[in-house]
């Protein structure tokens, strides 16, 4: 929300019918621009602000993935299949009966069940693996550009492995994979929203501005698309992706598919607002001043819709994240070696696997739910704040 601090320099001449509480600096409120009022109203909704912070945190994780993850997502250790999560502890015995400050995890003691031949891991109280911050670890390239080997957290001895959230069937670190998946899952939503934003705004604006047969046609298209059950249609489109395509191509096609069905809500919202604004005084004035239609749309009507559009796309984002997750989960979306939350959930498809390693379901599912919940709360807050002149 970097654009929210803009304060228009001109004083408004109309009486200040402000929804804000009295007791503040009346002068500054009367002179405040629309975005300042929206920001004021938004920050009063504590849940929405908290949700917004969560979203920023998610995107922060998505940006600095390589540094934040303790290891690499594809590094497998076959001797540690389905190793349970290790608890980070801060104090360790110092050998003289006391304790000292030493962040560490306990190593694994492996037992093989003689009947089922299944390996079970328990914490080995004597095996202490020291953990450090900003440690040297496996080398990576930040954003595929900058070579580095520092990690926020990890074992001080490079050759040790830690599984803060447990490991999967190949002994890969779930925490690292979850963090790498955050980048893919969160960015697919963002890219998809940009695409459906273009579609929705253009079609909605055309429909609402011109009316008549254009409106009729676009309305019918919207009706068809929005009355198709989404998941079967997503499945149908995603299944047509050739198996030979590279992960990057698949990533973009999935983004397009996900956004193809999501623009209708936005188009409806934009159309409705256009309809309402078409007869407003400032639009009529702009027209009488001889503004071309394009100028009326882009300079006069669209800017006054920005806050509403922002709210609608915030509410559309979780739908896309869930769509990607569902498609990847079913095996027709993103595929390994790409890591997304949905790809991680593929491992949890089998109920027996989940019974042995519940963390494989818990953490990726938790990430999806927290992200979706945060977007919903943030979107609700933005929608309420979008019209700061109301009650």
């Amino acid at each position, binding site marked *: 929300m970097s654009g929210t601090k803009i304060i228009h320099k001109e004083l408004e001449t109309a009486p200040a019918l402000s929804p804000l509480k009295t007791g503040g600096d009346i002068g500054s409120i009367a002179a405040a621009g629309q975005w300042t009022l929206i920001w004021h109203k938004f920050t009063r909704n504590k849940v929405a602000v908290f949700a917004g912070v969560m979203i920023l945190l998610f995107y922060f994780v998505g940006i600095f993935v390589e540094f934040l993850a303790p290891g690499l997502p594809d590094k497998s250790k076959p001797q540690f299949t389905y190793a349970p999560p290790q608890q980070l502890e801060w104090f360790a015995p110092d050998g003289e009966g006391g304790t000292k400050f030493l962040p560490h995890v306990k190593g694994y003691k492996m037992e093989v069940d003689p009947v089922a031949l299944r390996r079970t891991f328990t914490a080995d109280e004597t095996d202490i693996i020291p953990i450090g911050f900003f440690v040297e670890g496996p080398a990576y390239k930040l954003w595929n550009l900058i070579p580095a080997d520092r990690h926020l957290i990890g074992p001080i001895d490079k050759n040790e492995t830690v599984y803060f959230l447990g490991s999967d069937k190949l002994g890969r670190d779930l925490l690292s994979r979850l963090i790498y998946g955050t980048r893919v899952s969160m960015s697919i939503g963002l890219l998809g929203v940009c695409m459906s934003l273009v579609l929705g705004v253009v079609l909605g604006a055309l429909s609402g501005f011109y009316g008549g047969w254009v409106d009729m046609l676009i309305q019918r298209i919207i009706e068809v698309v929005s*009355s198709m*059950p989404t998941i079967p249609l997503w499945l149908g489109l995603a*299944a047509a992706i050739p198996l030979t395509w590279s992960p990057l191509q698949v990533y973009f096609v999935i983004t397009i598919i996900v956004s193809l069905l999501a623009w209708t809500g936005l188009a409806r919202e934009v159309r409705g607002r256009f309809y309402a604004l078409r007869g407003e005084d400032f639009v009529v004035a702009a027209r009488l001043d001889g503004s071309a239609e394009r100028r009326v749309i882009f300079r006069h009507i669209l800017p006054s819709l920005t806050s509403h559009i922002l709210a609608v796309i915030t509410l559309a984002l979780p739908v896309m994240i869930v769509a990607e997750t*569902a498609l990847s989960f079913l095996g027709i979306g993103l595929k390994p070696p790409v890591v997304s939350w949905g790809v991680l959930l593929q491992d949890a*498809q089998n109920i027996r696997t989940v*019974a042995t390693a519940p963390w494989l379901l818990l953490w990726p599912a938790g990430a999806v739910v927290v992200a979706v919940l945060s977007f919903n709360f943030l979107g609700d807050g933005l929608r309420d704040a979008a019209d700061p002149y109301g009650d």
Partner: protein
Amino acid sequence: MLKYIIKRLLYMIPTLIGMSLIAFMIIQLPPGDYMTSVLASMRDSGVTVDEAQIERMRETYGLDDPVYIQYFKWITNIVFYGDFGFSFEWGRPVSELIWERMGATLSVSVAALFFVWGVSLPIGIYSAVRRHSIGDHVFTFFGFLGLAIPNFILALTLMYLSYKYLGQSVGGLQSPEFADAPWSWAKLGDLLAHLWIPVVVIGTAGTASLIRILRANLTDELNKPYVVTAKAKGLPEYKVLLKYPVRIALNPFVSAIGWVLPNLISGVTITAIVLNLPTAGPLLLRALISQDMYLAGSFILLMGVLTLVGMLISDLLLALLDPRIRFN
């Protein structure tokens, strides 16, 4: 009313055409046509390919015709002969495969719809009457959670919990020992024991949003002067509540068929894949993966039609309930 019905039916025609275009597009989307996949699969299984038969099939499906003629043939066969094409994976006409599965899809969706209604009505009323009580906050919290958890994750979680704590292996709609048994009370009980998980999974999101709508509508209604008057003249609380405000706030329940049904059918698809229910979902996924496109396209088309019919029913019911709609 008749005029309204006719108008509403006519409005459906362009939408239906649009849907059939989308379904046909999905059929055409994978590279190569239907016969290339048939030939490939025949060669894979070592069946000798009969040239004359291929020629005949190319002829029947008009695969050498331009796309619009292919579409025309496909849609006229469906509309006039009920012929949805041929599933090469199953070696049977699509129409034979599809009805049983669509029936199961419909039954689970309708069961979920009743669940949505049955749960959200009392909770919605409670939440509106006791606004900001602890119960209201608890329901709101669970409502948000229910909206945020994707169906398949909820299904997996319930499966895991019932596997771990109830020792019951869930999945399917029947235990194996009842699968071929004739209908009896025991079989019905077994069906219900399996049905509750998909119904809860699919219905949760719809329930949550319907509770929110009902709560908002009823709150508006409860503040109106006629409610105050009714209370002032000493009408019992339940009568004040149920006689008028609830009846007016019920409109969204009827229109819910229109927008909840697409979500339910959509939800049944993925939930059925996770829980392995005998509905259209798993078969659709299999058809798509093996590129059995006539089967897949027909499922998508029929699911769309099912939603449209749902919307039609909800619109007609609403018009029946609310004269303002049918006279506008």
